[in-house]
């Protein structure tokens, strides 16, 4: 069979800095050998894609099998170093503020009823038979530059091509990859000048002069050579072969001088793809499914050219008690290189069979059968999706430093978080809370659902009123928090944290279905934006833009603000009077700008998360996931006030009842300390022991000292602890406006 992975027309490639001519039809390996060179530094050449002995650095990528690479004009080939590994590919990043430019790799995705891998006789027959049955068939052959990398679940066949990747989604796969030729294992098998019978045929067809060639075993067809009987004992020579020593049945060694030895030592199934696809609809036909006799047990020479394992290594491993194929492989590293046992597999099995008396199966095959680069593997893959609020560009225009938080891009600050803090405490400020989870739950069983979901009573929330709620799982651990706003007897708006929104929707829907309740759940997280107007002048600002009578604390209603229909919720996270304006996303920019404009003379500023985290910390408000842990019960958070244990039932109640009886040493406390805030996460020390850690900290501009929330995990609770080498006092939040007058003002 001729190699069709070849050049279209003659040209030149550059090998180790030297231009080398090639002819039409040449692979890189053939072009190199045409010049009398070895693409590596020695070892048997098979030109079948089965071994590592022709791999080189091609256009900067090491470990490319040059027999599978067509020669193309200007291709730059460097040989691997004779000893040691190739070095890493160099990536130029002259300016560390800019990313290196990466080449693009195309991906095509196709479907086929049946994929046949291998276009040889058995593959062609399988393809014909499948077509005759009316199936859509795709034939992939490495010689047509379709290198099959692996068969994955689906089955999905991953194919490497010179111009990109092909992912084929098939119903069935037929592996017709044929057989690989056995390489000789004997002393001197690392020399140059050893080629397999098939390689000899290819080279001869390509017009490559094989010189004084000697054939051992089954001779190649149509290649002039001298056949020598017997089995190979060793190859002689330095670097290049000068003679081959054989032994016939008479037991006598015969030395035959030569520069090329053509070996026809038999075959082994090329079955890596079929061995890696257990459990998938994959069938194997032709030689790939055949059981060939194993070669004789090797006695000397290199067994595994990839990992440079000698027969004496196998013997050494066996002598040390590693008595099965997998252990021999792992201990000697035989079969763990580029060809993944393609060359050494039959010899390794023969070695183990000789000593154990049983012929072992080949070790497990895994991707990749043919190698791809990480760039080829990852082509057309996108992993980073972070949502943007409709106000994203407004934040950028105001100098906002955006960062990823809970799946969203959110403003961290607008350049000066302390100024933003003071705008909230003393004037009025806007915060983008579009990222909050927002669910509408309605229907005849809405109250029943919410009573079961939340540890708070829900039935007594009047329409137009709202309540802060915790969301617990069955273990009684906090998973989220938010507000319940009752609109009518049977309709509620629920809010959740930004990071918890996606899970909360599933949570609510799953339980509604589980309990078979008649409710309708509508997720409006993405369709509604929300702006938090907060600060002592918030009411005044809203009155300016048409909200004549802003709702009172914990009231909510639908109204028009600056011409935009809003669901206005009065609450407070910052500690100041706050109004969340929930509105359609397509009106958000308009509303934001109107508020900013109307508040200019009031000293309005937007605030980012950095200021918000400090503002809420002065109030002692917990942020789920920042202050709470995976197993935080309300008791541990000092939030038993948000749980009504006298309710008939709610998620987590039985766990809370049970764990209330258990000793518990974990509590979230407030702390105050002179000076600047310590790093969040700082250990809390008492008597030289770590007794907890700081969850959140803030240097309060108003109070002039550090305020913290932190975990103490040991009893008894000390009054004073050491943090950051300083003495801190245990204190009960809120640290600011403990009566909550400002939130209600």
């Amino acid at each position: 069979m001729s190699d069709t992975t070849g050049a279209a027309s003659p040209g030149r490639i550059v090998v180790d800095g030297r231009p080398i001519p090639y002819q039409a039809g040449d692979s890189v390996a053939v072009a190199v050998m045409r010049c009398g060179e070895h693409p590596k530094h020695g070892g048997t050449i098979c030109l079948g894609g089965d071994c590592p002995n022709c791999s080189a650095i091609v256009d900067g990528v090491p470990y490319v099998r040059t027999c599978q690479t067509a020669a193309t004009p200007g291709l730059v080939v460097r040989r691997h170093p004779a000893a040691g590994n190739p070095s890493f590919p160099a990536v130029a990043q002259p300016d560390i503020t800019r990313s290196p430019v990466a080449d693009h790799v195309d991906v095509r995705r196709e479907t086929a009823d049946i994929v046949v891998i291998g276009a040889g006789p058995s593959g062609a027959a399988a393809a014909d038979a499948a077509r005759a049955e009316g199936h859509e068939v795709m034939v992939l052959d490495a010689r047509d530059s379709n290198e099959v990398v692996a068969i994955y679940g689906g089955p999905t066949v991953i194919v490497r091509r010179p111009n990109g990747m092909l992912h084929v989604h098939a119903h069935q796969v037929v592996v017709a990859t044929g057989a690989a030729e056995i390489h000789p294992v004997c002393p001197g098998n690392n020399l140059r000048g050893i080629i397999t019978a098939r390689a000899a045929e290819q080279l001869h067809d390509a017009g490559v002069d094989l010189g004084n060639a000697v054939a051992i075993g089954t001779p190649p067809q149509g290649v002039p050579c001298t056949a020598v009987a017997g089995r190979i004992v060793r190859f002689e020579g330095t670097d290049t072969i000068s003679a081959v020593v054989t032994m016939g049945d008479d037991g006598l060694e015969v030395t035959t001088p030569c520069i090329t030895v053509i070996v026809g030592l038999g075959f082994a199934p090329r079955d890596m793809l079929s061995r890696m696809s257990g459990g998938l609809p994959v069938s194997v036909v032709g030689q790939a499914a055949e059981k060939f006799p194993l070669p004789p047990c090797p006695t000397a020479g290199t067994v595994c050219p990839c990992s440079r394992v000698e027969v004496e290594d196998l013997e050494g491993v066996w002598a040390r008690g590693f008595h099965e194929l997998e252990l021999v492989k792992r201990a000697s590293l035989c079969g763990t290189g580029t060809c993944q046992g393609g060359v050494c597999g039959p010899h390794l099995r023969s070695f183990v069979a000789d000593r154990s008396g049983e012929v072992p199966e080949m070790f497990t095959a895994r991707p990749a059968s043919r190698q791809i680069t990480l760039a080829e593997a990852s082509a057309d893959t996108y992993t980073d999706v972070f949502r943007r609020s409709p106000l994203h560009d407004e934040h950028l225009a105001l100098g906002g430093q955006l960062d990823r938080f809970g799946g969203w891009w959110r403003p961290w600050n607008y350049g000066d978080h302390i100024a933003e803090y003071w705008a909230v405490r003393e004037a009025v400020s806007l915060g983008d809370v579009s990222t909050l989870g927002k669910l509408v739950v309605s229907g005849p069983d809405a109250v029943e659902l919410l009573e079961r979901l939340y540890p708070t009573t829900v039935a007594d929330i009047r329409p137009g009123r709202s309540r802060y709620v915790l969301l617990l799982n069955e273990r009684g651990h906090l998973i989220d928090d938010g507000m319940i706003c009752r609109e009518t007897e049977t309709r509620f708006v629920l809010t959740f944290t930004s990071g918890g929104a996606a899970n909360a929707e599933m949570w609510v829907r799953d339980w509604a279905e589980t309990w078979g309740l008649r409710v309708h759940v509508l997720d409006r997280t993405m369709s509604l934006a929300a702006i938090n107007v907060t600060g002592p002048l918030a009411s005044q600002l809203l009155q300016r833009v048409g909200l004549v009578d802003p709702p009172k604390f914990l009231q909510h209603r639908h109204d028009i603000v600056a011409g935009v229909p809003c669901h206005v919720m009065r609450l407070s996270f910052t500690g100041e009077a706050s109004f969340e304006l929930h509105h359609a996303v397509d009106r958000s920019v308009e509303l934001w700008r109107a508020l900013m404009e109307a508040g200019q003379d009031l000293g309005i500023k937007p605030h980012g998360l950095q200021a918000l985290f400090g503002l809420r910390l002065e109030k002692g408000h917990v942020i789920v996931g920042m202050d709470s842990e995976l197993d935080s019960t309300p008791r541990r958070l000092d939030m038993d006030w948000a749980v009504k244990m006298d309710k008939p039932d709610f998620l987590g109640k039985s766990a809370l009842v049970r764990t209330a009886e258990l000793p518990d040493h974990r509590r979230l406390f407030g702390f105050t300390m002179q000076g600047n805030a310590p790093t969040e996460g700082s250990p809390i020390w008492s008597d030289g022991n770590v007794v907890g850690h700081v969850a959140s900290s803030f240097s309060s501009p108003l109070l002039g000292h550090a305020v913290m929330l932190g975990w103490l995990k040991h009893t008894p609770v000390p009054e004073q602890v050491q943090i950051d080498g300083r003495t801190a006092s245990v204190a009960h939040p809120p640290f600011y406006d403990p009566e909550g007058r400002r939130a209600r003002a």
Partner: protein
Amino acid sequence: MNEFVETLLEMQWHEPKSSYDVVIIGGGGHGLATAYYLATRHGITNVAVIEANYIGSGNSGRNTTIIRANYGIPESVRFYQHSLELYAGLEDETGCWIMHATKGLLWMAHTETGMRAERARALINTACGAETHVVGPQEIKQICPQIDLTGNGRYPVLGASYHVGAATARHDRVVWAYAQGAMQRGVTVLQHTKVTGLLRDGERVVGVQTDRGPISAGIVMSAVGGNVTKIAEHAEVRLPVRTHALQAFVTNAYGLDFPGIISDSELSCYVSQTPRGQMLIGAEFEPQPSYSMQSTFNSLASCAKKITNCLPFLRDLRVLRQWTGICDVSADFSPIMGFTGVDGFVISTGWGTWGFKGIPAGGEQMAELIATGKTPDLIAPFALDRFANDHSMADLGSAGTR
């Protein structure tokens, strides 16, 4: 003979008996280390380790060989730091070359949230004995010049925690070091022997039933990985454990130029270079529970995508082999060690994706527990009853990136 082979010690296989003082199910790192420490620290050598396949064939031979102690809670930092220190002395102790190399681990962050976590990690690690610093972009570039600080323009590197003592060791050789040391002292290792049930005398576990016959035991320990819930079921012990697949891959071998272990905590991927020069790359475990060891292209593609964000030179490296292990992940992402509430049956499980780094300390402490009948202080927080007592060891933040 190459140095990998030359330096191997000999395995001394013993004929099986019908009864042992201790039977350990699972011939991976934890099972063999427990046997080793029973023999060396406590003189208990009438021990059998029963392995369904060959030793080290499970997760011990499938992990990414990283040894670190930079956890998020003091109990874990102390445990893994102890393990890290035992690892550092293991070659001297056993005479086996496990290819141990202290390399340092950079755990990079791209967001303020990520930096917050790394700052906290550095403080709590250092307070509990595992030296870890916060480093900025310039220091990162000095430690690892190959890093693109812009993160492909998408994930700029804001900083990292640098865990100084992190190391790697050749996984197989760790398994063999413990196996050889145990077998030298008379421990029996039975390969290709499947445990099909537990022998009971009333409530008490008194041995194991295997596909090669019953074996009685004074005490039975499960050191099984991947299928532990099935073994525990035989003792009617319910475990808060789910089994998930974890995939990794390795490239061809290159020059030994890559410094340390680089981990991306927010993208959950990491890379180190093996002593042979291969780049060993992994990600987090698959989200859905499964016992399947089938590798997926999606995992390879997404992991390759993530790791090349900050390490663009990896783009031109070729993938040699991709594989999958199955990990027992506990409800709080911390291991479970100790008594089970069933007499004669102790357990070491829940090792998730961090079992390799816990092998020496896990083995040493479980050996002490078996020998003395008392739970050592270091592993007391990891007892199974912590779930019933609502004292979980939640540490999700440290689990993502091995």
